[in-house]
């Protein structure tokens, strides 16, 4: 699928489904997007520049992030993961989602390196795709930026 404008939620949802299946061994069930606070959360950001300029931003709570990292690293699900590993794993999830999205855009685009930082609030649900990770929502927001 090649699209000429920026990514849409269907494209991001498809990328999330691929990543959930191959990296997290799970099904990415869609869940309703809701706005609000994120008591102890993480935000990963990756830039896409070129034919479309923007960012993909992933939000989830720290517990879900730790469990995703444990799955990727082959650690027991209840093992508390070091922050460095959690940030790395969440960044890599968004990196692969971003790569899939970029690959579907028409024209030459460039993917940045993922950045991960603490987050305290959720993005506007209108721009988001939300999928479930073991019952916890994981949000990916599409943000268009000026060229």
């Amino acid at each position: 699928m090649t699209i000429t404008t920026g990514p849409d939620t269907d494209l991001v949802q498809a990328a999330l489904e691929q990543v959930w299946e191959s990296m997290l061994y799970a099904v990415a069930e869609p869940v309703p997007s809701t706005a609000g606070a994120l008591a102890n959360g993480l935000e990963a950001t990756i830039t896409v520049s070129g034919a479309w300029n923007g960012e993909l931003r992933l939000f989830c709570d720290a517990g879900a992030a730790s469990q995703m990292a444990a799955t990727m690293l082959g650690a027991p699900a209840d093992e508390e993961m070091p922050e460095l590993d959690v940030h790395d794993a969440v960044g890599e999830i968004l990196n692969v989602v971003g790569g899939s999205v970029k690959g579907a855009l028409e024209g030459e685009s460039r993917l940045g390196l993922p950045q991960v930082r603490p987050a305290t609030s959720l993005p506007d649900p209108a721009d988001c795709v939300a999928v479930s990770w073991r019952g916890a929502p994981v949000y990916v927001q599409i943000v268009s930026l000026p060229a």
Partner: protein
Amino acid sequence: MRALIVDDSRAMRRIVGRILTERGFETAEAADGQEAIAVLESMDDLPAVACIDWNMPVMDGLELVTAIRARPEWRDITLMMVTTESEQDRIVRALAAGAHEYLIKPFTPDALVEKLDLLGLVPTPGGVA
């Protein structure tokens, strides 16, 4: 048989490493191209294959492929890009620079094993090749 995994994500190095270890490879890791060159220079027994990410800080995967191909003593190392870069022109560039195979993330363990089989990289049980 040895394999070198070059990726700036530790989680991805672990995922690839798990698949290769189950396949019978001994693995070494590097977090970017420059570190990979240092690892290769330190090795007496070179890897049969290097799995190389494209987007990495310091030195990216394409630069690493070019650097490895410029060293005659490393000509026997099979180079496989393992990357999110899925566009046709990227694949062509990597193969033109000297990569032998190309695997797009996300991938399944079976997809990686298929590529290894295609390249004839099958470790001998209990043996060093």
